[in-house]
């Protein structure tokens, strides 16, 4: 039988039972559109999440904590992040540089003339500055005594001081970026929950009614006011910090960072705590390990550090595990939707068995006039496949439509929650192709049994069938 004749015959056969064909195809439509919607949604979320993370921070940086910070109470085996450990880690293959990454946790305010601002103070080893992935807007990227590198947004936070606010507000009280609340997190790490789905943007907008202006702080000398309390007595001290370099904006929390040398930080801490920090014996709070610019090497180094008993985390490893989590979600959702298609397959099989029964005489006639078994097989299997195809096409269209509607709602929700809303629904090219192909395959598979029943009909009896 020629292909064109087969198609013509199948179309006319479907046409004469079109009511049932449409109803049967509805099952496929539901299954296929569910597949399209669910996979489009999980693909969109995956893409968005991965994008958010990838745009965020430097991919080859690994943040290291000693395990007890997360593991909880009193693990005696806890290894501290001492200078010896830094030396050990720097010898791991693929590691380019290692530095302590210590945040100053005292209360601070920055001043410039009559303006007041905030920033997160971090101490790093001046020698690793070239590996930090800093993109300079201005300056020479050198850390020396009382010279700092500041993130792009530090200058944005400065505002005119009114006498009343000046006397009452401390650095951390405004919930602003300079607050000391995200101490101990990786660069901008306070925003992990915020990065998911692009919501929140990692920081809350300041609700200050005071006028703010963007200052170019490059080359200026900022006054850092520190406060400490000692037995109920409050003590203040002011340190002068020269802005040696300003970084380009990364869009993350690190835009509010102020980097200084470990030496400078040590003197701040010493004053604030009233004693020298015990980093050499009890270790640093966290380290920053810079690996070679390669995702796999970064992952390998992360794993190696983890194996040595530390908590190591890199954006790359987060992206990796998120991405595989989402792939799993995708597979599970796709699988659930596929069950709907399997149910639809039973519907197709049922419709085709009915069709064989109704057309028994016709099948007998086809045999009598010389149709071969394979002709009869192809007619019935093609009919079933066509029902699958029809359902698949409609399902993809409806699924894409529903996905767009979901996207609209999600976009509305996301923008009302204050983040720039990109698409949560992504239909990759393979999805409609797969969905239609899978529906056709389901139809074909469902047609096999009825088609064989048609073939096995005894022509003499079939021709007598009423």
């Amino acid at each position, binding site marked *: *039988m*020629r292909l*064109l*004749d087969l198609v013509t*015959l199948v179309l*006319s056969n479907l046409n*004469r039972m079109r009511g049932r064909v449409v109803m049967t195809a509805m099952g496929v439509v539901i299954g296929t559109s569910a597949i399209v919607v669910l996979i489009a949604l999980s693909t969109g979320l995956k893409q968005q999440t991965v994008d958010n993370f990838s745009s965020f921070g430097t991919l080859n940086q690994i943040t290291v904590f000693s395990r007890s910070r997360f593991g909880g109470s009193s693990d005696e085996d806890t290894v501290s992040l001492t200078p010896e450990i830094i030396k050990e880690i720097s010898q791991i293959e693929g590691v380019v540089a290692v530095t302590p990454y210590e945040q100053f946790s005292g209360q601070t305010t920055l001043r410039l003339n009559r303006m007041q601002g905030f920033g997160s103070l971090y101490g790093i080893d001046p020698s690793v500055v070239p590996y930090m992935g800093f993109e300079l807007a201005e300056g020479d990227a050198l850390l020396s005594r009382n010279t700092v590198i500041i993130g792009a947004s530090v200058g944005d936070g400065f505002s005119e001081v009114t006498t009343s606010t000046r006397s009452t507000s401390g650095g951390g009280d405004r919930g602003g970026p300079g607050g000391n609340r995200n101490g101990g997190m990786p660069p901008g790490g306070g925003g992990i929950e915020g990065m998911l789905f692009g919501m929140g943007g990692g920081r809350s907008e300041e609700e200050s009614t005071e006028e703010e202006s963007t200052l170019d702080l490059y080359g200026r000398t900022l006054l850092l006011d520190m406060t400490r309390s000692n037995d109920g007595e409050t003590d203040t001290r002011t340190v002068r910090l020269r802005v040696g370099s300003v970084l380009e904006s990364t869009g993350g929390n690190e835009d509010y960072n102020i980097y200084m040398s470990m030496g400078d930080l040590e003197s701040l801490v010493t004053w604030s705590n009233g004693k020298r920090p015990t980093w050499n014996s009890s270790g640093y709070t966290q380290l920053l390990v810079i690996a070679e610019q390669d995702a796999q090497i970064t992952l390998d180094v992360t794993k190696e550090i983890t194996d040595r008993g530390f908590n190591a985390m890199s954006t790359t490893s987060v992206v990796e595990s998120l991405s595989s989590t989402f792939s799993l979600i995708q597979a599970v959702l796709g699988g659930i939707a596929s069950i709907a298609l399997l149910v639809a397959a039973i519907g197709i099989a049922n419709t085709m068995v009915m069709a064989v029964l109704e057309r028994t*005489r*016709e099948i*007998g*006639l*086809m*045999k*009598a*006039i*010389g*149709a*071969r*078994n*394979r*002709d009869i097989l192809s007619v019935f299997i093609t009919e079933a496949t066509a029902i699958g195809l029809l359902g698949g096409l409609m399902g993809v269209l409806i699924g894409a439509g529903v996905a767009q509607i979901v996207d609209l709602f999600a976009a509305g929700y996301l923008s009302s929650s204050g983040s720039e809303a990109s698409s949560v629904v992504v239909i990759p090219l393979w999805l409609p192709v797969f969905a239609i192909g899978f529906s056709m395959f389901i139809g074909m598979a469902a047609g096999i049994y009825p088609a064989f029943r048609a073939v096995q009909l*005894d*022509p*003499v009896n079939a*021709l007598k069938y009423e």
Partner: protein
Amino acid sequence: MAFISIRGLRRRYVMGEVIVKALDGVDLEVEEGEFLCLMGPSGSGKSTLLNLLGGLDSPDEGSIVVNGQEITKLDQNGLSLYRQRQIGYIFQSFNLIATMTTLQNVEFPMMFSGVSRPDRRRRATEALIKVGLGDRIRHRPTELSGGQQQRVAVARGLINNPTILLGDEPTGNLDSKMSEEILNMLVEVNRNGQTLVVVTHDPRVSGYAGRIIHMLDGRIVSDDGKH
């Protein structure tokens, strides 16, 4: 060897305890171009013999050789091709497909023999003109009289130029005037050299036949052409 040569043909139906011997040892030779009539009481095995000859059924014993080919040894695919190339069928109940036009019904067998669409159109139209239905090619079977439907069936049966035309009571559902029409067509077909084997109770049909065979209980009891 004769054009059709049937030897020791047996066909049994087992219905629980009962064994029905639908054919109980049939030997028959038919020459090319004969017009042969199968008669006999109901249940005597006429249809069974016709179906075996048409390759729609297989015997329990015996052989059928048609045109040098032993069809009782063919597999399913071979039988399909045999039916497609050698056999045309006409049934008592016409067996036209109700959803197809008369033209499509006549075209239908050519779909399976791989004739191209324009050729099919042309040949089916010609065949319908020949049976006097040139003005009915777009009609559905239900829009035709019984006689007209059977004429469509004849056109369909002949469309692949079969060497043998088989009819199982082709006039059984027709009144005498319509039967006459069909009979004339059959005679015409036979004149063109096609072999005709027709099962009938109708004495008018047997009147035109060149040879009449009577069956009883699965056996041939008389054959007026036997020499």
